[in-house]
């Protein structure tokens, strides 16, 4: 049996999830011009929240998506207002240190509460599969794929069709220009931070049903979001989609042909090549910032 169609299918499924997962990171980077090193821990926070709601209250992680988004939005607002807003006026390096510290804090907090054991959200449909001719795909992957597309599409519509979305894009393109039309960048930073963190936590629900997780997986997830943003480019939802699909294909094909251990190495090589040769990424918005 030819394995290629199966690999392509797996890549698409994974890539769509990576696109949604990285969207918050890319948005925060593009609009606030900060790299949030705690992003991966935010994702895990969502995974543990969904895990707790499922284990103790029996709420399906798909149904608890709005809870994670809401909790993330509030956390993003709070973090921005209390911490990041004060530091980002100084210099970019200070934000890196701050979010690095936040990442360590969150990882250890999760470790304190949940211990370092691998947890997983074992929904009943995790083992069921669809068989489409020669292709086999688990129901849970299809559900994550569809939800990722719907949620990514919702963010796209928010950014394109609403006044709030336009104001976010305006600040990303020209902060001073936004000020002189009457947009408050501070307010946009708050909303973007809330939105970005909300996306991170809700993608944590999906991550939790896809695979097992521990409190210390945040660094790896941040690197993936970083790679998607560099490869795809900043500023647009389409860019995150392109970067996510690229990472999906890269991981699936590298793992199959070279082995699991090569996945991360291949991602790093790709990241360096893009930074060197195409800093705007595959689909970076014209006139948006370069990574």
């Amino acid at each position, binding site marked *: 049996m030819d394995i290629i169609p199966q690999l392509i299918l797996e890549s698409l499924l994974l890539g769509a999830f990576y696109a949604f997962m990285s969207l918050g990171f890319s948005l925060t980077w593009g609009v606030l011009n900060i790299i949030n090193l705690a992003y991966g821990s935010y994702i895990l926070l969502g995974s543990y929240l969904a895990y707790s709601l499922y284990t103790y209250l029996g709420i399906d992680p798909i149904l608890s998506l709005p809870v994670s988004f809401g909790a993330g939005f509030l956390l993003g607002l709070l973090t921005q207002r209390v911490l990041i807003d004060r530091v980002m006026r100084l210099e970019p390096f200070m934000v890196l240190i701050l979010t690095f510290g936040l990442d360590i804090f969150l990882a250890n907090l999760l470790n304190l509460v949940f211990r370092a054991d691998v947890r997983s959200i074992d929904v009943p449909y995790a083992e069921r599969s669809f068989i489409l001719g020669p292709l086999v795909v688990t129901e849970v992957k299809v559900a994550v794929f569809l939800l990722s597309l719907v949620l990514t599409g919702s963010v796209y519509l928010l950014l394109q069709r609403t*006044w709030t979305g*336009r*104001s976010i*894009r*305006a600040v990303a*393109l*020209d902060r*001073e*220009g*936004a*000020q*002189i*039309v*009457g*947009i*408050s960048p501070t307010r946009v930073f708050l909303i973007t931070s809330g939105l970005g963190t909300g996306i991170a936590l809700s993608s944590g629900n999906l991550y939790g049903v896809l695979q097992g997780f521990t409190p210390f997986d945040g660094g790896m997830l941040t690197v993936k979001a970083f790679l998607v943003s560099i490869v795809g480019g900043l*500023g647009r939802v389409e860019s995150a989609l392109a970067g996510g699909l690229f990472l999906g294909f890269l991981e699936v094909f590298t793992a199959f042909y070279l082995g699991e251990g090569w996945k991360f190495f291949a991602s790093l090589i790709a990241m360096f090549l893009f930074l060197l040769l195409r800093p705007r990424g595959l689909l970076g*918005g*014209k*006139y*948006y910032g370069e990574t």
Partner: protein
Amino acid sequence: MRVLEVSDLEAGYGDVQVLRSVSMHVNEEEVVAIFGSNGSGKSTFLKVLIGTLKPWGGTLKYMDHHIEDLPPEERVRRGMALAAEGRKLFLGMTVEENLLLGAWTNRERSKENLEKVYTYFPDLYRKRKDLAGDLSGGQQQMLSIGRALMSNPKLLMIDELSLGLAPAVVTKIADVLLRIREEEGVSMIVVEQEVSLALDISDRAYVFDLGEIVDEGRSEDLLRRDSIRKTYLSVL
């Protein structure tokens, strides 16, 4: 009635003082020109007026209210608008999106104002789906002014009206500005290096040099003044 009244304004960047004791005013439906050499503080002055740069001292009164401590968004909401130096457009967004964002503080009238701007600048209507970054310099200047008009300003400030534009385009834009003043009753501050243009389209003018106002008067009087003609119009 005075739309704007500035007294003893001081401002700068870091430790460098740029504006020194600047006092001026703008009357209702008046076009006031500001000109002077490069680095004389003209653009800095407009930044202080719109609120993106905080003044060090002095007073700013708009429609008889102190505005020194108001953020830019509140000044725009009250009717001040700036077509900024370098145009500060959202280059990755379409012409129409740029215009709509100009109505951020006045959303309920965005459709009506959009039609009005397209009437003043038909070129923008033809290019409404294009990215702002893909427009010519003249069209970008029209967009910058059009975007400022979307908020229904009472005081429109334009920085470097003619910079980098062909004379025919400048004339076209200047004609539209005079029409806007006539039809909308908008007061204007026009910062311009091309002194003959500045004096042609304005009622009064202020001359900036090294951050200070060194001369002022009615534009027609300034046009006849020897010192102005020798220094700025190269007439011997």
